[in-house]
C-alpha cells in the first residue's frame, strides 16, 4: 500500500494530461508519417512524404524565417523592456501599487481583444494613432502605418512585445524582492556605481527568474496564434505567417492534415532545440559565476 500511495495521488492529474495532451501529441506524430485523406482519415504509412512536401513548399522557408524573427524579436525586446520596467517598479514611490496594478492589464486581457484594439489603432483610414498624433502636432496628415507586409509584421511584433512584458516584469520583480538590501549598501560604501551594481549584484541574483521567464516565453511566443490571426491572418501571400498560423490554414482551410501534423512536429523539434540550448547556456553561466 505504501509504495502505491504516491501514484494514486498523481493518478487524476496523470489521466487528465495523458488523455488530453499526450494522446493528441501521439496522434500528431502518427498523422505526420501517415497518408491522410481530405476528410482526415488515415490511409496508411507515408514515411517522410509529408515532411518532404512541407520542406519543398516554396513558402516554407519564408514562414520559418518569420517564426524565428517573431520569436527572437518579441522575446528579446520584451525581456529587455520588462527587466528595465521591473527595476523602475522596484523603487519606492507614490502610486507604486497603482502602477503595478496597471502593468498587469495587458497580461490579464485576452490576446484576441488586445490584437483587435491594435488593429483598430493602426488602421490607415480611421485608426486612432493618426488622430492622436495629429492632435499632439507630431504629424500634419494621416500616415499609413502599414504600407508593406513587413510593416504589418513589425506591428504584430509590437503587440507581441506589449502583451509579453508584464510576465517578464513580474518574474524579475519577484527575484528582485528576494535580494538582501545589505548587498547594495555595502556596494555603495565601496563606491560602486549604478551599472556596476546592476551587472555584479542584480543580474546574477535574478538570473534564475529570468531563465524561467525566458524559457516559458520562447515556448509561448513561438506558439502564439491569436495576434497574427487577428491582425493579418498571415496574409498577404504568407508574408506574415508563422508556423502556427501556417499550419492552422493547412489543417483547417486546405484539408492537408498530414502536412499540418508534419509542421507541428518540425516546430516542436525547433522549440526543443532552442529551449534546451538556452537552458544549457544559462545553467553553465550560473555555474561559472558560482
Amino acid at each position: 500500500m505504501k509504495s502505491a500511495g504516491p501514484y494514486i495521488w498523481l493518478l487524476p492529474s496523470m489521466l487528465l494530461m495523458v488523455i488530453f495532451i499526450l494522446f493528441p501529441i501521439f496522434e500528431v506524430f502518427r498523422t505526420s508519417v501517415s497518408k491522410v485523406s481530405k476528410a482526415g482519415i488515415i490511409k496508411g504509412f507515408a514515411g517522410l512524404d509529408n515532411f518532404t512536401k512541407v520542406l519543398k513548399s516554396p513558402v516554407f522557408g519564408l514562414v520559418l524565417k518569420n517564426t524565428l524573427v517573431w520569436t527572437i524579436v518579441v522575446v528579446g525586446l520584451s525581456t529587455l523592456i520588462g527587466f528595465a520596467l521591473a527595476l523602475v517598479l522596484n523603487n519606492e514611490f507614490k502610486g507604486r501599487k497603482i502602477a503595478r496594478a496597471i502593468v498587469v492589464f495587458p497580461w490579464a486581457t485576452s490576446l484576441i481583444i488586445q490584437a483587435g484594439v491594435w488593429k483598430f489603432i493602426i488602421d490607415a483610414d480611421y485608426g486612432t494613432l493618426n488622430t492622436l498624433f495629429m492632435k499632439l502636432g507630431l504629424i500634419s496628415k494621416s500616415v499609413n502605418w502599414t504600407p508593406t507586409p513587413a510593416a504589418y509584421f513589425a506591428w504584430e511584433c509590437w503587440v507581441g512585445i506589449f502583451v509579453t512584458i508584464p510576465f517578464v516584469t513580474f518574474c524579475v520583480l519577484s527575484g528582485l524582492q528576494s535580494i538582501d538590501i545589505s548587498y547594495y549598501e555595502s556596494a555603495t560604501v565601496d563606491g560602486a556605481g549604478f551599472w556596476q551594481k546592476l551587472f555584479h549584484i542584480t543580474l546574477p541574483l535574478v538570473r534564475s527568474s529570468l531563465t524561467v521567464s525566458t524559457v516559458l516565453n520562447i515556448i509561448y511566443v513561438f506558439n502564439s496564434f491569436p495576434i497574427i490571426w487577428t491582425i493579418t491572418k498571415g496574409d498577404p501571400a504568407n508574408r506574415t505567417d508563422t508556423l502556427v498560423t501556417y499550419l492552422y490554414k493547412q489543417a483547417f482551410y486546405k484539408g492537408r492534415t498530414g502536412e499540418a501534423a508534419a509542421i507541428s512536429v518540425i516546430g516542436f523539434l525547433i522549440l526543443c532545440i532552442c529551449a534546451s540550448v538556452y537552458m544549457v547556456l544559462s545553467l553553465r553561466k550560473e555555474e561559472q559565476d558560482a
Partner: protein
Amino acid sequence: MRKKEKVYIKKAQTPKDKALRVLLYLAVIVLVVVILYPYFVMFTSALKSRAEIYAMKGTLLPIEWEWKNFVDVWKLAPLARYFINSIVVSGGATAIAILCGIPAAYALSRMKFKGKKFFLGLVIISQMFAPVVLLVGIYKIMSLFHLTDTLLALIFINAAFNQAFAIWLLRGTFMSISPEMEQAATIDGCNQVQAMTRVLLPVAAPGIVTALIFVFINAWNEYTVALTLISSDILKPLTVGITIFNGYNMIEWQYLFASSLFATIPVVILFICIEKHLVGGLTSGGVKG
C-alpha cells in the same frame, strides 16, 4: 523569508538624487500612459457611433457619448449566452484542474517516490505543446469521444493545459509550508487525506485561491481551441463570440469594443487581486527540483 524590499534611490537629498527621482516618475508616467492607451481607445470608441468611428476626421473623445452601445450589444448578439458559456468553461476547467492538481502537488511536495522526476518532466513537456500545435490530434480525440462542438471538450482541454501551472503554483505553496503540523496530526490519528484536507489546505488557502483564479483567467481568455472545436453559435465562449461584430464587409468596432470591455473588466480585477502571489509561486514551484 521575504526580505525588506530594496530601494535604489533614497529620499531626495542631493541635486543628482532629485534628478533621478524626476526621471523615475517620468518613466512611470510614460509607462502607464502607453499601457493604458489601448484601453482608452477601447473605451472611447465603444462610446462612439459607427459614423463617428469611420469618419474621415477622427476624434479623441466621442462627440456624442453613445452609452446605449453598452446596452445594445446585449440585444445585437447573444452576449449573455456567450458569458454563460465562458463561465461554464472556465469554472469547469478550474474545478477539474485544481481537484486533480491538489493531490498531485501534495504528493510532489510531501512524498519521496520513484518517477517523481519523470512526472515533473511530463508536466514540462505538456507546456512545450500549445493547443494550437496539437489541434489536429485534439480534434481527433474529441471526435472519438463525440465531444466536438461541446463545452465539455473546452473544459477538459483547458483543465489539461493548465495542469502544469496549477501544479507549479500549488507545489510552490505547499513547499513553503512546514510539514510539521501535518506530521503532528498524523500522530494524533489522522490519515494522510485528513491531514491534508484539515491541516494543510486551510493554511494553503491563499495559494489555492491564486491558482484557482489564474486557471480561471487562462481558460476565460482562451481563443484558438474554442475557435476550432465549437461551430454552434450558441456554444461559443466570449472570446470567439464577440468576433460576431467583425463582419465580412464592415467591422462594428463600437460594439466589438463594448463587448470586449465586458469580457475584460472582470478578469482584470481578478488578476489584480492575485498579482502579488502569482509570480513568486510560479518561479519557486517550477524551478526547485
